[in-house]
């Protein structure tokens, strides 16, 4: 057996802290979550009964779970679509060099820089039906008949949260898109202009095909992120009114810290995990292809 050199030993020693952190804060909780998902565990009563795959079976007959899953998918798709369109449009506008472009790009980054709690509370105030500026302006300009209760209306609450999520998340995509746009060879555009291609033709036949894979990678990456969105939704609506914004992460919280049924909650968390593993699989496949 080959003995480790002194340098190698020191090298491993330096790895120890990160391994310890990984074991304590990632691997142990993860394994504990898997194990817990097979138990009927109530935090309040401390009742712990092995339940096999019982939690998973009852999950699939739980209407609330399916409704929350549907809402989460709707939220994820809608938010991502909005973020992509907004980010790409602004990236196209900002992919130019003129005086003050750096400052303008920085300003567009502000929504991303703001802490989520500030974003959520500010938008809650702005969307409030009594003292919110948005509904005030809508009424002032006769766009709506009266005040609109964006976050209190079961039909409007989720789209309203999605709009805020789009606003908060688009800068990250925008920066990626700007970087990607700057990698498109200028010669392609020059040749297209000589051939008389319009701006739209350039967009659909040069820019988008060139960025296709990159967009796919970014979208997949963001899917994982948005699917797990918890803080913004919780701070804005706490999953209400009447379940209207109860996405899966909120449902996990409610089953655990609301009903103390941590066994059930962890089984939902494992379903989310499985879904995201599949998405990550696609993500890494795409990266591999891109390489």
């Amino acid at each position: 057996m080959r003995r480790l050199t002194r340098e190698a030993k020191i090298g491993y020693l330096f790895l120890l802290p990160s391994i310890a952190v990984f074991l304590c804060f990632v691997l142990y909780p993860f394994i504990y979550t898997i194990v817990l998902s097979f138990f009927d565990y109530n935090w309040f009563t401390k009742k712990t009964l092995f339940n096999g795959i019982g939690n998973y079976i009852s999950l699939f007959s739980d209407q609330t779970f399916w409704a929350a899953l549907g809402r989460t998918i709707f939220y994820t798709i809608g938010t991502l679509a909005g973020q992509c369109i907004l980010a790409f449009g602004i990236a196209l506008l900002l992919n130019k060099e003129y005086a003050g472009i750096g400052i303008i790009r920085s300003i567009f980054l502000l929504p991303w820089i703001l802490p989520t709690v500030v974003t959520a509370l500010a938008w809650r105030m702005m969307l409030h039906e009594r003292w919110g500026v948005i509904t005030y302006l809508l009424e002032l300009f006769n766009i709506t008949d009266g005040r609109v209760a964006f976050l209190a209306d079961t039909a409007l609450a989720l789209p309203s949260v999605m709009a805020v999520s789009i606003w908060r998340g688009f800068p990250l995509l925008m920066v990626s898109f700007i970087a990607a746009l700057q990698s498109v060879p200028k010669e392609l555009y020059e040749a297209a202009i000589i051939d008389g291609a319009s701006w739209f033709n350039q967009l659909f036949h040069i820019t988008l095909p060139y960025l296709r894979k990159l967009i796919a990678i970014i979208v997949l990456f963001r899917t994982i992120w948005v699917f797990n969105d918890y803080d913004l939704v919780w701070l804005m609506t706490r999953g209400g009114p009447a379940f209207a914004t109860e996405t899966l992460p909120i449902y996990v919280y409610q089953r655990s810290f609301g009903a103390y049924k941590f066994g059930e909650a962890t089984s939902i968390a494992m379903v989310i995990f499985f879904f995201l593993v599949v998405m990550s699989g696609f993500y890494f496949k795409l990266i591999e292809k891109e390489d």
Partner: protein
Amino acid sequence: MKKRGTLVVFILLISVLAVFANGTNESEGKTHLTFWTALTTTADQQAHQKIIEAFQAENPDIEVTVEYVSHKDWYTRMMTSVTSGDYPDMVLCDQSEVAWMYYQGMLAPMNDVLSAIDPTGTDFVSGKASIDSCRTRDGNVWGIPFSMNINAIWYRADILDDLGIDPDSIRTWDDLYEVCELVKGQGYTAMGMALAREAAYQQLCIWSNANGCNFFDEENGAYLLDIPSERKKVEDALLYLKKLNDNGMMPAGVSNWMWVDYRTAMANGEVVFTSSWGGDIGVASEVNPDMLENLSVMVHPVGPDGEEYPPYHDAGIWAWSITAGAYETKKEAIDKWIEFFFEPENISIACAARPVYNLPLQKSVLESDVFYSDPITEMFKDEIEYLFEYALPTARRVGFEAGPSIVAGQISSQLFLSDAVQNYLFNNWSLEETMEYIDSNMKDVMEEFNYPIDGYNE
């Protein structure tokens, strides 16, 4: 060598800092008491500070610190504190939270300190909205209430007066609805109440109570919603709330209204009636004092199935509880603090932080001059006496009909009742679906926590 020396000095420095960070007060020989409370307004905080300062001046060897935890975050904070074992020495919270903590095994019985506060056992007013809310069937007391708040219908006396409506004539739900229609016709929003996800369950209980319904038997705690006549009372409460909402008697956005929303709306003159525990007065005194002279209160009108007028009223209490671990080591200091807090002057200070909402339960306080020395409390003396005379005798809280129960704590900490109300009012659930949801979730909770659905046998 130099590096090693630096390392040693660094470790020593950290150790010294750790020792001091943990023990400043102990090194001064002080006993440190901490309490959490869900009474979080600025006025509450100022009142607590005043009482703490007075106590510390009398007891320089005891230091009291307070942490404010909102009701919304209370149970989550408690859960994490129970798990980590890092919970406060005392809490000042409502009776549902006391029940929750009692069944979590966190609390110490307070019979001794209660005897010190009320040696004759006659000072606290009787009824379900008093000490009984915190007394288990074995006779142990797990919380001592410093105040109670009774839900009733607060109204704009000036508007009813202008419309020639005598508040005393509003004795049934139909009467109330007719007046709501009338005030709506004058361009007012009729009714405000808290129907947000964390609060809607209270309105279900309040209106069910006003319809003569108890969820649990008063004697043996048996679950009553399996009895068709009792179940119908809850259905009628839901139907009435829906009628108010669907016919525009409640404001847009009421599904997100927390307590502060309807109180502020009343203070700002945006609603005519509120289903309220009187917190409107404190808010009005802060944001629109001119409104105070227009506000008054009446007992709940009775629902179609209610047999008695006035009907049952919901009442919350704010009680002191002591955590078990702390009582073993700091009993003397804790007893001193609790006894000090229950002195009439201090109860009056604490009550004045939320005038009319915080009503003392000790006769010695009610009959003292200090309680009414607060000008707003004094201004509403008639209303307070009215509430004591007409609402207090029927006051109780769902889950506490037969004393604190494990389900009582769960009704407050879980969201299923609120979700049922919200989905029925705002999400087109049918009445059958809603009742089934309430019933199945109540039974799930009872089963989960081994609550005797047929009542206690002894």
